[in-house]
């Protein structure tokens, strides 16, 4: 049966369904519905819920539970995620699977509590120190939040790697019908590498410290091979109306829903607007964007930031088409009218494009 839940609550319930039994967090708006839900739900399934004394304590508790082989999660919002970065680097360096939810708010600093996508760089380029990647998934609806959180635990275990859910205040607090249609996981296979007591077997070691010269370089080479495999196998995106498009929008999460509205409004015009919505932000959907850049005149990237993902779009298109940007910052969410006006601006002297303009007035 479909339930009406916020994105935050859906993330929490999906984690429970996926077998997560160890949640540690520290309150911060706009992700409080998640920690609140976990505080009552986790005891019902016999799991552990701890409201930690700080974000750093919470991510360190995640490290412990992950090392012991449990499915574990923490969540926060931008300023809190900054605090967790040391822990995330250690998790990546120790190859520990876990899920971290970032319900982004406006920044920098304490910022505000409105929706933002300004943590893209931090999420996909490695917010902590060292050469590492975490898998970054970006839901754009409450149902997709539930589905991706569930998958995140499988991906984390498959690659022994942290996975981040990158949402924002809007996706976190928005309520939509959601269904938990995936299998409720109770008994998960034991992880052979985990720290469960070494009696009767060879001891397992979880560490990110390699003081002997050469060992760390070898370990890094191993990590890079793993990241390459992830890039080859785990890219996800949604493409809408891209065949013979005159302009392609690239946007994720909340911005993508605004862009989808633009695609819908323009569907009866001669001027074709398409959308590529990255679902994995790392690995970035390079191949489809590379292909589309050979066919289309221009790409417009729409973000709730001053321009972050647009850098990856430019790196991928390598100048084959022009790449433009429209963004709002500090809690601003783009409107479909604003995006339409920007499209008309970047394809000047196009009569068909101008027919779009009157749509900007139809709100």
């Amino acid at each position, binding site marked *: 049966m479909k339930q009406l839940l916020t994105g935050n609550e859906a993330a929490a319930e999906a984690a429970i369904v996926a077998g997560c039994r160890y949640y540690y967090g520290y309150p911060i708006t706009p992700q409080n519905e998640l920690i609140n839900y976990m505080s009552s739900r986790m005891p019902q399934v016999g799991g552990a819920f701890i409201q930690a004394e700080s974000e750093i304590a919470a991510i360190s508790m995640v490290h412990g539970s992950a090392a012991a082989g449990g499915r574990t999660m923490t969540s926060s919002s931008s300023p809190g995620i900054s605090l967790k970065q040391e822990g995330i680097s250690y998790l990546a360096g120790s190859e520990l699977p876990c899920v971290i939810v970032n319900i982004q708010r406006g920044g920098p600093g304490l910022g505000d509590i409105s929706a933002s996508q300004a943590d893209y760089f931090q999420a996909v380029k490695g917010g902590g120190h060292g050469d590492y990647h975490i898998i970054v998934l970006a839901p754009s609806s409450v149902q997709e939040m539930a589905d991706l959180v569930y998958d995140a635990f499988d991906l984390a275990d498959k690659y022994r790697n942290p996975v981040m859910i990158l949402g924002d205040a809007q996706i976190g*607090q928005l309520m*939509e019908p959601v269904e938990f249609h995936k299998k409720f996981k109770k008994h998960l296979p034991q992880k052979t590498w985990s720290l469960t007591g070494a009696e009767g077997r060879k001891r397992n070691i979880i560490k990110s410290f390699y003081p002997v010269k050469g060992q760390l370089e070898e370990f890094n080479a191993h990590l890079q091979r793993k990241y390459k495999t992830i890039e080859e196998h785990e890219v996800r995106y949604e493409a809408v109306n891209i065949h013979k498009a005159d302009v392609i929008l690239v946007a994720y999460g909340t911005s993508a*829903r605004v862009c989808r509205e633009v695609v819908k409004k323009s569907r009866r015009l001669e001027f074709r607007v398409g959308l590529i919505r990255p679902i994995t932000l790392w690995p970035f959907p390079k191949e489809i964007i590379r292909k589309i850049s050979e066919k289309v005149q221009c790409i417009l990237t729409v973000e709730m930031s001053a321009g972050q993902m647009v850098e990856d779009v430019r790196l991928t298109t390598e100048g084959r088409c022009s790449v433009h940007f429209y963004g709002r910052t500090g809690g601003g969410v783009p409107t479909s009218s604003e995006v339409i006006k920007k499209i008309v601006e970047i394809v000047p002297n196009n009569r068909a494009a101008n027919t779009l303009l009157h749509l900007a007035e139809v709100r």
Partner: protein
Amino acid sequence: MMEKIILAGFGGQGMMLLGKLLAQAAIAEGKQVTYFPSYGTEVRGGTAVYHLIVSNEEIFSPVIEEADTLIIMNQPSYLKFKEMLKPNGLLLLNSSMIKVDNPPDATIYKVQATEIASKLGNVLVSNIVMMGAYLAIKKLFSANLILDQLQTMLKGKKGDLFAINKKALENGMQLIEATYR
């Protein structure tokens, strides 16, 4: 069919619940729905605003740029959100707490929701009076469907509150039938 409603009032006037009941009714009828509460860092006395979209088709952006209906509970919300209404849209006002000046181009219905709720014995049901009025005007859902949602929500310790909520809903509906029909 697509209905875009903005609900606004003081925190505590029950706009959140009003929208949630409509959203749950929408799910029960197999319709698409998005419900976006936006609260700021305001203290008591600020405005709480909610964007509710009910549709037969897939809904893309849950943020309303132009509303079909505004349901407004207090003066600050009226001044802040009245321009969000589409021309000749439905403006449903709690006239106990709103003085209508410079009204936008709208079809206006005034309901003394706070007074009616107080007379019924609990000012907290003013939101359900507004719900009754809204249902009588737009007929988006049947009163019974909404009462079903209320009953589910008020089970257990709050069960006693169902009767007064039902009265509030009926009062809101009757007021529209008596005054505007």
